[in-house]
Each structure stands twice: as structure tokens, then as C-alpha cells.
């Protein structure tokens, strides 16, 4: 594998406006291609905005819709990771993320952990995804996560055990907590992405949106976290941005030699204990 250039498109989608957002996304893609980038990552629900509520069925897209096919076409020139509302033939609606490459859908991830607490209400409107699977891309093996997924250790763990060396997290994280030195939700996320990268010797690409919806701010701060846990590049706070990072294959190789925790991870012990817990809980 060689180094590759990534853009984290820290955009401000318009709530419920598919056509406007698609135009905005296309502009970012064209710019990223012109700048010689090889992968562009968009936030969770980039095509629709976040607090959709009853708009969910109105903005949902089938995988064979013209909008998704348009993006699939564009992926001949640059690989694309993007979030949208997916509708299936049996009319379930998912908070989904796609990885598109060389004119094809390489991977579809449906958000498993739909936050339904505090200011979140996703499970009221959306169906739950049921799998975490790593997939092969031309930049190596990857895993997709949608926002809250990453707050479950098992999600990143499964992807890493499935061989992913790059975790891509698409996010729409609301900013809150102004008591401390920095925004509460931002510091929490930064601890999470850094720790996840360190635990699993993985690279983390985190793309968060900006803008306001009904007074709720999305704080941005998209970042590339190296397998060492160091955040190497981070986008501006609360403002639109385009965060460019070169993912260094050598750094991944070196980290996996210096800190081979993932190599030593004992899947047998983990499975044996999880099965025991499953049995004891009577699941």
C-alpha cells in the first residue's frame, strides 16, 4: 500500500434539501479531484441534514436512485465516503454510509447504534443496522462507522479484528458543554478518536459537519488521527472547512511494529468469554 491523500469535507448541509446538498457535495468532490486528492469523506447525513424527524421518508434514497448513482459515477475519479438516509424495498429507513470507489459501491454501512436520549431521537424515525464489516479498498482494508457507532468499543474492535487499518467515522455531533477549556462534546470526541486509534493501532478519519439546526450547533473539528493516537490535522471549529491529510503507510507499519497490541489480541479468549456471558445472560 502507498500513501494517499484524503479530504475531510466539513460542510454545512441544508435541512431536508437533497438537490442543494447534492450540488454542494459535487462542488466539493470536483475541487478535491482538481487538487489531486484520492479520497473524500463527508459527514453523517451529508445529503439531508440531521434533525429530519418526519422528513426522513421524504429525503430517503434507494441505492439505485439517480442521486446515489451520480455519486457512484463520480467515484471513478475519487473515492467517496458519504452519509444519507437509505430506504429499502421493504420500506425501512436507515442512517447509512456508503464507500464508493472506481464507479462501484464498495461498502454500505447502516448505523447500528441510533442514539435516542438527551437531544437525540433517531430510533423513533430510523431502523437499526445489524452488522459491522471491514472491506477492501484500493487504500487498504477499512471500516465505516456512523457517529454514535464509535461510542461502542465493540464496533471499532470488530472492524479492527476484521482487518481494517483505517476507520472512517462520519459524524453530525452537536456541540454542548461550555464549562471547560474547550467544548465538552469536542473534547470527549477527541479523547475517543485518539484512544480508539491507540488501542487498535488504526488510523481514524473523523468527519464532522458544521452549521446550526434549530439552535443546535455542529462543531466541526474533523481530524486525521494517526495510529499513534496523535491528531495530525484538525479542521476549524464551527466553520466550514476542507481538511487535507496525507495518510502515511510507513507510519502505520512502524506503529504496528512498535506497539503490536492488535497482533497479540486474543480473539479466542474474547469469544470464549463473550459466549460465556451470552450463556449466563440467557440470551
Amino acid at each position, binding site marked *: 500500500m502507498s500513501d494517499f491523500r484524503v479530504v475531510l469535507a466539513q460542510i454545512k448541509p*441544508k*435541512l*431536508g*434539501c437533497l438537490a442543494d446538498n447534492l450540488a454542494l457535495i459535487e462542488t466539493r468532490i470536483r475541487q478535491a479531484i482538481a487538487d489531486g486528492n484520492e479520497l473524500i469523506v463527508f459527514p453523517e447525513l451529508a445529503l439531508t441534514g440531521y*434533525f*429530519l*424527524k*418526519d*422528513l426522513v421518508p421524504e429525503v430517503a434514497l434507494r441505492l439505485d436512485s439517480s442521486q446515489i448513482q451520480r455519486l457512484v459515477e463520480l467515484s471513478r475519479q475519487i473515492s467517496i465516503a458519504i452519509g444519507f438516509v437509505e430506504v429499502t424495498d421493504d420500506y425501512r429507513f436507515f442512517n447509512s454510509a456508503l464507500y464508493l470507489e472506481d464507479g462501484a459501491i464498495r461498502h454500505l454501512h447502516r448505523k447500528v447504534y441510533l442514539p435516542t436520549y438527551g437531544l437525540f431521537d433517531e430510533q423513533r424515525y430510523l431502523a437499526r443496522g445489524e452488522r459491522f464489516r471491514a472491506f477492501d479498498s484500493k487504500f487498504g482494508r477499512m471500516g465505516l462507522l456512523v457517529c454514535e457507532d464509535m461510542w461502542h468499543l465493540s464496533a471499532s474492535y470488530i472492524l479492527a479484528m476484521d482487518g481494517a487499518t483505517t476507520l472512517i467515522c462520519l459524524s453530525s455531533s452537536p*456541540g454542548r458543554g*461550555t*464549562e*471547560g*477549556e*474547550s*467544548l465538552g462534546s469536542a473534547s470527549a470526541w477527541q479523547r475517543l478518536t485518539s484512544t480508539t486509534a491507540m488501542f487498535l493501532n488504526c488510523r481514524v478519519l473523523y468527519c464532522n459537519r458544521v*452549521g*446550526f*439546526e*434549530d*439552535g443546535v*450547533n455542529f462543531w466541526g473539528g474533523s481530524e486525521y488521527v494517526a495510529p499513534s493516537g496523535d491528531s495530525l490535522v484538525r479542521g476549524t*471549529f*464551527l*466553520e466550514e472547512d476542507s481538511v487535507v491529510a496525507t495518510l502515511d503507510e510507513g507510519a502505520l507499519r512502524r506503529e504496528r511494529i512498535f506497539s503490536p497490541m492488535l497482533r497479540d489480541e486474543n480473539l479466542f479468549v474474547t469469544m470464549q468469554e463473550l459466549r460465556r456471558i451470552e450463556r449466563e445472560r440467557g440470551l
Partner: protein
Amino acid sequence: MAGIRANTGLLRQILVGFVRDEVRKVGLNKVVLGLSGGIDSALVAFIAAEALGPENVHAICMPYTSSNPESEAHARLVAQACGVNFSLVPITPMVDAYFASFPEADSMRRGNKMARERMTILFDHSALLSALVLGTSNKTELLLGYGTLYGDMASALNPIGDLYKSHVWQLSEAMGVPRAVVEKKPSADLWAGQTDEEELGFSYRQVDELLYRMVDLRMTNAELVGAGFEAEFIETIYRKIQNSHFKRRLPVIAKVSNRTIDRDFRYSRDWGK
């Protein structure tokens, strides 16, 4: 007990961004607000001026004959300090004309009428200037219900509704609101010498400490007592929040259909924006 603190730099960035984003996304560029001479509206004027440029902010001072003359002077001082447009629309003629028919009205009715009179002036100027009305109620008064429903509580956008009065003081100082306004005693200014804290029976700093723990941290009564709050004070504040909750909600609609507005017909206000 350590006073509740906020990171004023962060608050400023978020609130300025909020006003800019939420005003511009509806295709407007201007705001209008009532400037009372007090700290809450002063802070909102400063935030709006930074968000949209002072030339796009219209502050209106709407005194009644019994208002303290110092209030108008402070309102002018604030407008000057942040550079926003200023106009004066006294409400005495309309309020007095109304109460000529109801001379027996008590001070609560008169105070509410004044607040609602001001609201109609702000929303009229909203149409006149193509400007959104900014609210100036803080979290303390919203929780306590210390405001007039459809009066000073009415607005299109409220930048400071999630800030306790203690935070309002901190942010006002950080943003350069004139000292005289930051330091004076908060007052609804219905009559000379009235102060909020005398009327409420406790200080804002006291109640903010309690509200923060009760509402934001969701501490139990036992924990609050353990933290040093008197049980009676806790009970009084809890009741105030409960009894004023109607003021924080839209009017209740009798449900008869499958999709009732705000119950099972749910959309964000920023729908399509």
C-alpha cells in the same frame, strides 16, 4: 460553593455563529430587539452586532412613563457602545389608553400589558425592516417563569435562553458591555426602585447555583440538600419551574386526527433551510 462558570470565548463564538447562521438561512440579514437598559438585552445587542454588523441591528427602547429615566440613558449608552441603530418608541399613550377603560388594573396586569405592547412594536418593526426579532430572556428567568408569555418571552430567535444570569454577567463583561449596565441591580423596571431579586426573594447567584445542579446536573433532592441548599428553597424553586412550564410550551391542541401538530407531525423549524 464554587460559582458556576462558563468559557466565555466559546459562548461568544457559538452565540455569534448562531445569530449569523439562523438569520441568514431564512434569507434575511437584519435583526430587531428591545433594548431596556438592562444587561440581558445589552448582551444580545453586542452578540447581534458582532454577528451581523452593527448597521444590521435595530435596537428599540420602549419606555413607559414610570420607567426609570436611567434605563433609557443606559439603553442609549449600550447602543452607542456596540454601534447599533437606536430608536425610541414610548408606550405610554397606548398603555394608558387601554387602562383608561380598566382603571382598577393591578401592577401585574399593567406590567404584562406593557411587555405585550413592546412585543407588538418589535414584531411590527420586524415587518417594517425585514428583520427577525431577537429574544432576550435568559435561562434563569425562563425556568422560573419570570417573564410575560407572548410579551418579553416572544421572539424569533433567542441567543441567551440557555445562559443562566450568572453566565450573562460573565459574557457581558467579556464582550465589553458598559460597566454601568453590568453592575446595576437587575430590574423589570415597572416602577422606580423595583429590583428582580427583591421581588423574587432570593439572589440570582443563589438560584443559579441551585438551578444548574437541579436542571443541568439532575441532582436528587438529597444531593442538593447535601450540597448545602435548604429543603424549602429547593421545593419553592421546583414548584416555580413546574407551575410556569406552560409558558415554555406551545398552546395545547386537542388531538382528534392521526397527525396532530407537534405531537405526531414533527419537523424542525429549520425545515428546508
